[in-house]
């Protein structure tokens, strides 16, 4: 038997005219979503005897538990069971990578709002009421609540790490000019509109079935098994769709599944745990706040020769994913700029806050903004337009192509994207008119900025760069595809369906992508790091090829030809002049006892990074983009408005333009929220006081700029990714840095563009006013 030629497969993927048409197919669940038929975990019809759980939380940030009096909780109407860490039969610690995250507080209180006990009752309301009735006696200890306090106390969740190239100390000494800067960067609440929810349904003996809203079903499976002290093969996790994730359901979903499972195992009844919104905001981790600084050396033209950058992530009380998150901040502190001599230090500060976690960009945004902060600083110091300084410092043959972590940049697209966007957005004409406007407008000031994005694609934990799939062809020709990725709105299942349809040359209607289940594809990676389609798409394709190989051999054999000539297209199989409809082929193959099911696997090639030396290739490729934002600022109040945004973004060969543009627009607005309105506020006791939607403001519909031009750079990925597409989930989030830079540009006009405004983020009206005061003081 000869193998199907790779090229046959490739051509089906690249040139089939039908696949072009499919590139605008709407989200696979769109019709169900608009009619209210799309089922989320809380919508699943209640199993008989469903009980409801709620959690009781601590009201101090740091201390030791002396005694927990649960008598009133037990006496509250409808209560069935109450548990603390002492009642966990297996592991108490559910830390995803490192230890440190107890499923319920274990002797020690580590943040304000930490879950201490859980209660099971007949109704959700009864459970919630009962959960307020405990008396928790805690011996308070001193809490570390800020990065500065943590640095002072040398309080870290993980060791510090450094990347460097050249001789940064010498570089700075020899630089014609140097400048220093600091930046305080706010965190971000995920605010998935569907909150955290899990339902555990006990099965025979000790087996457990879990419905969860999670980006990482395999981890939920593992942790549920560990807290119950049973083997992984006794737990099945099912995840059809999330109402938003954004990283907030990567590690943060498991705890609620574990608590529901603990009750379900104890009481033998189905248990649902759905967090009320305010509690959800208090007990789940957020994007890491950072306190960063830099020192940069440059010449009269603004060419940077050396930089020292320090990033300090506020990790909260435990490591969670912070090691990789701070690393990713470091990996992106260069953005698209060559830093000949540089040193990047990353610190992981431990504070008495909720453990901060994955969030779209995964530290990348908090690092990348430092590169843009340096550029702005250099531009104001040299009197150049920031765009000129950006272009002057890009990676390239002349400047250099090596990143601070020793990866050689190939196929850089930043220069091309910037040039195209500069023209299409009419940057220079608008720059001139804005300068004019600002001269004659004493109160309202306008600003403009173009910022690029270069984002590394791959999990930096190498082992996660693998994926599995399971594809079934049924006897009527319909196909079921299953894979390790989860659908959270990003359109992964739509793209997977398109890949399957394209591989078999059938219409999309023939393909059903089913819920993610740990008993169909095992040991999966989280749907994170923008990798969902790259990894699972290739794994699904791999499974399709296996089935196609069998069908091709079977068909070629039946017409006495070689399988080389076999093609799958237009709902049929052809081999030279012979052809058969897809459905007939499947039926004949079934009667001929050909297996119509296959699993697929994929691992990302070329990854070779040594963290010890901080050198190598952590990323398969980079995704690029750039945006131009224009803003107006009211210098009496600090209010601002984003007037216009132009984006040019690189998704390789788009698998679905509608979905890709949706990811870019949505990521941009979410990034804009991070940098402007979304203000996390903790009080002096360490209590989160921006803990509901009345006090924490994500962008509303009026915040979408009226002029919002989004275009794709149509350039196939030079690497062999699925159909040469590129990952799109996270990279465009960082396009929103242009809003922050444009706001600074508007403010800089107050000092004739000679000073770089100190604008901390999020740039609320109050912080804008603080930047204006600072500018006036230092001028």
């Amino acid at each position: 038997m000869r193998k199907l030629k790779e090229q046959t497969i490739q051509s089906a993927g690249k040139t089939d005219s039908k696949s072009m048409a499919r590139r605008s197919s709407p989200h696979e669940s769109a019709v169900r979503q608009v009619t209210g038929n799309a089922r989320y975990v809380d919508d699943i019809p209640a199993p008989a005897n469903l009980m409801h759980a709620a959690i009781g939380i601590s009201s101090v940030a740091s201390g030791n538990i002396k005694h927990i009096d649960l008598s009133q909780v037990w006496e509250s109407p409808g209560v069935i069971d109450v548990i603390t860490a002492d009642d966990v039969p297996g592991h108490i610690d559910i830390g995803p990578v490192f230890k440190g995250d107890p499923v319920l507080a274990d002797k020690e209180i580590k943040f304000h709002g930490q879950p201490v006990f859980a209660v099971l009752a007949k109704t959700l309301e009864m459970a919630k009421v009962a959960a307020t009735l405990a008396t928790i006696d805690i011996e308070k200890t001193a809490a570390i609540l800020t990065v500065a306090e943590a640095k002072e106390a040398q309080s870290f969740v993980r060791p510090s790490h450094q990347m460097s190239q050249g001789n940064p100390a010498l570089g700075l000494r020899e630089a014609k000019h140097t400048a220093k800067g600091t930046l305080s960067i706010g965190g971000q609440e995920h605010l998935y509109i569907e909150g955290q929810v899990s339902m555990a349904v006990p099965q025979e003996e000790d087996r457990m079935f879990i419905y969860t809203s999670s980006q990482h079903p395999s981890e939920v499976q593992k942790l549920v098994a560990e807290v119950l002290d049973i083997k992984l093969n006794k737990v099945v996790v099912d995840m059809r769709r999330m109402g938003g994730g954004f990283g907030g359901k990567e590690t943060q979903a498991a705890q609620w599944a574990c608590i529901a499972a603990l009750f379900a195992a104890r009481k033998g009844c189905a248990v649902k745990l759905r967090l009320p919104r305010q509690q959800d905001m208090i007990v789940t981790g957020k994007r890491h706040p950072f306190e960063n600084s830099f020192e940069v050396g440059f010449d009269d033209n603004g060419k940077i020769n050396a930089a020292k950058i320090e990033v300090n992530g506020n990790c909260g009380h435990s490591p969670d994913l912070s090691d990789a998150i701070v690393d990713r901040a470091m990996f992106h502190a260069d953005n698209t700029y060559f830093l000949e001599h540089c040193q990047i230090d990353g610190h992981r500060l431990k504070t008495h806050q909720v453990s901060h976690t994955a969030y779209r960009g995964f530290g990348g945004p908090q690092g990348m903004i430092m590169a843009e902060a340096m550029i702005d600083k250099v531009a104001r110091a040299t009197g150049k337009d920031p765009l000129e300084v950006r272009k002057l410092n890009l990676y390239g043959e002349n400047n250099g192509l090596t990143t601070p972590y020793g990866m050689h940049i190939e196929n850089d697209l930043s220069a091309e994207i910037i040039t195209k966007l500069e023209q299409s957005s009419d940057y220079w004409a608008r720059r001139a008119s804005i300068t004019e406007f600002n001269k004659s407008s004493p109160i309202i000031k306008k600003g403009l900025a173009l910022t690029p994005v270069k984002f590394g694609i791959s999990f930096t934990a190498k082992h996660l760069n693998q994926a599995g799939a399971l594809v079934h062809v049924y006897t009527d020709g319909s196909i079921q595809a299953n894979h390790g990725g989860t659908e959270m709105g990003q359109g992964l299942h739509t793209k997977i369906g398109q890949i399957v349809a394209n591989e078999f040359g059938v219409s999309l209607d023939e393909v059903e992508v089913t819920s993610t289940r740990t008993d169909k594809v095992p040991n999966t990676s989280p749907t994170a790091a923008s990798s969902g389609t790259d990894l699972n798409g290739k794994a699904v394709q791999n499974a399709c090829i296996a089935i196609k190989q069998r069908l091709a051999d079977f068909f070629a054999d039946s017409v006495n030809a070689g399988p080389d000539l076999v093609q799958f297209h237009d709902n049929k199989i052809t081999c030279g002049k012979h052809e058969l409809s897809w459905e007939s082929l499947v039926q004949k193959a079934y009667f001929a006892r050909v297996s119509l099911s296959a699993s697929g696997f994929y691992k990302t090639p070329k990854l070779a990074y040594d963290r010890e030396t901080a050198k190598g290739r952590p990323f398969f490729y980079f995704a690029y983009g750039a945006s131009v934002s224009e803003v107006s600022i009211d210098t009496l109040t600090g209010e601002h408005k984003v007037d216009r945004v132009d984006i040019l973004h690189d998704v390789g060969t788009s698998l679905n333009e509608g979905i890709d543009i949706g990811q870019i627009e949505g990521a941009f607005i979410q990034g804009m929220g991070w940098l402007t309105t979304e203000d996390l506020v903790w009080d002096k006791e360490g209590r989160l006081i921006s803990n509901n939607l009345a006090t924490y403001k994500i962008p509303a519909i009026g915040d979408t700029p009226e002029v919002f031009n989004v275009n794709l750079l149509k350039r196939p990925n030079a690497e062999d990714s699925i159909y040469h597409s590129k990952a799109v989930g996270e990279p465009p989030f960082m396009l929103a840095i242009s809003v922050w830079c444009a706001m600074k540009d508007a403010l800089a006009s107050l000092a004739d563009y000679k000073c770089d405004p100190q604008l901390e983020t999020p740039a609320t009206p109050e912080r804008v006013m603080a930047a204006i005061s600072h500018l006036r003081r230092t001028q």
Partner: protein
Amino acid sequence: MIQFLLNDQLTSIDSERADLTLLNYLRDNVALTGTKEGCASGDCGACTVVIAEASQSGQSSDTENPLSYKAINSCVTFLSALQGKQVITVEQLQTGKALHPVQQAMVDANATQCGFCTPGFVMSIFALYQQNEPVNRADVITALSGNLCRCTGYKPIIAAAITACHAERDLADMQQRREVANQLNAININAENSTDNLCLPRTRQQLASFIKQYPNALLVAGSTDLALEHTQQLKPLKKLISLSYVDGLKRASQQNNTLSIGSACTLGDIQALMLEHFPSLHEIIERFASVPIRNQATLGGNIAGASPIGDMAPVLIALNASVILDNGASTRTVVLREFFTAYRQTQLSQGEWIHSIEIPLLKPNQHLVAYKISKRFEDDISAVCMALNLTLDQGVVTRLSTGFGGVAATPAFCADLEQEIVGKIWKKSECVDAGKQILTSAFTPIDDVRATAEYRIQMLENLWHRFWLETNAQDNAIATRVIQDA
């Protein structure tokens, strides 16, 4: 007994708890899970449903729309609000397999990602669609100001709403609407409908007698604030007395030079009337919460709640409004600036309710503004709210009335400023300086989640400056606002 149409099903509720929200009823009692809970506090819109009410005129003519459609947040609505109305949920829109034009437009525009906010958006757009009016981008943004989407960035949703509202309307629909209106008109509303948990008085005498009979019962109108005590603070609200059906409390009229607004009028009900007489309040009214909240929240509730950050109180104080208080036997009039006595405290006595709010109309030489500062433009709570009502006689200040929110324990005014500025020539810059100087020490605001005290004081000064610039601009207007009125 509460009777309403749930989609096309006549539904009677007899013994449910008074604090059962419509959202929980839909999801838990009748398994209509298309309507989602995102926040249970009226801030995200995932729970949006549409309420249809028979038009006030009773017998509708052929041309008039026999039903009015309003989007509301089902998470902060008690069943008591539904008497004689139709509740339309997302499940009702599809006809067989055919999507409603609003749904089809959402699909076609790629306007769904995770889909959890989608039913709420569909219903808000459906309410707009049912107005049968052409819409532009600004109308869509206003209509969807209470719906949050975390995935899309809104652009495709705006496009879908505009497309849907330009679609050809189905004429058969009008006949259906008339039939629904007839069904609704057949539902009686009277005090005898009261249940063990809920009183539905029709007259002020009945209201007074219920209050006397159940002194611990709470009065409820729009419930957008009261419901939070249940959904957020988990307090049971065992007995409620509804103000929504009491004669006169929903009436708004103009008599001589005064606008009289019944306390149970919703902000949505009175928006057109208010803007007819006070067009400069356009921004503050449109930024008062969101359309679904304004469709439920009442002016009386906003004032009786006595929130120091409720935006209507500062405006009405600056307008020199009064409230008429009633106890069923007699009424009394209290000037609004004297109504608020301490944090969340008012002059209302036990057994009294606000009957109406009386607002004197403006004379041509009065200049009224209301400014609001918040982190987000739409549906946010003021860090600072400032309302100013300036009377000029040939350029000289003859009177200034002020109102402030977010700077004290109650809605406030500034007597020092009001006195100091009278007699001054307004265009002289000394007016700016004098005002700033007074405002810098007039209040002692607090630091909280919305702003620091320092910023709030700075805003008092700078908004005063803005007011001076704007009222003196005339020929040489300079830009003072980042967001222009649509």
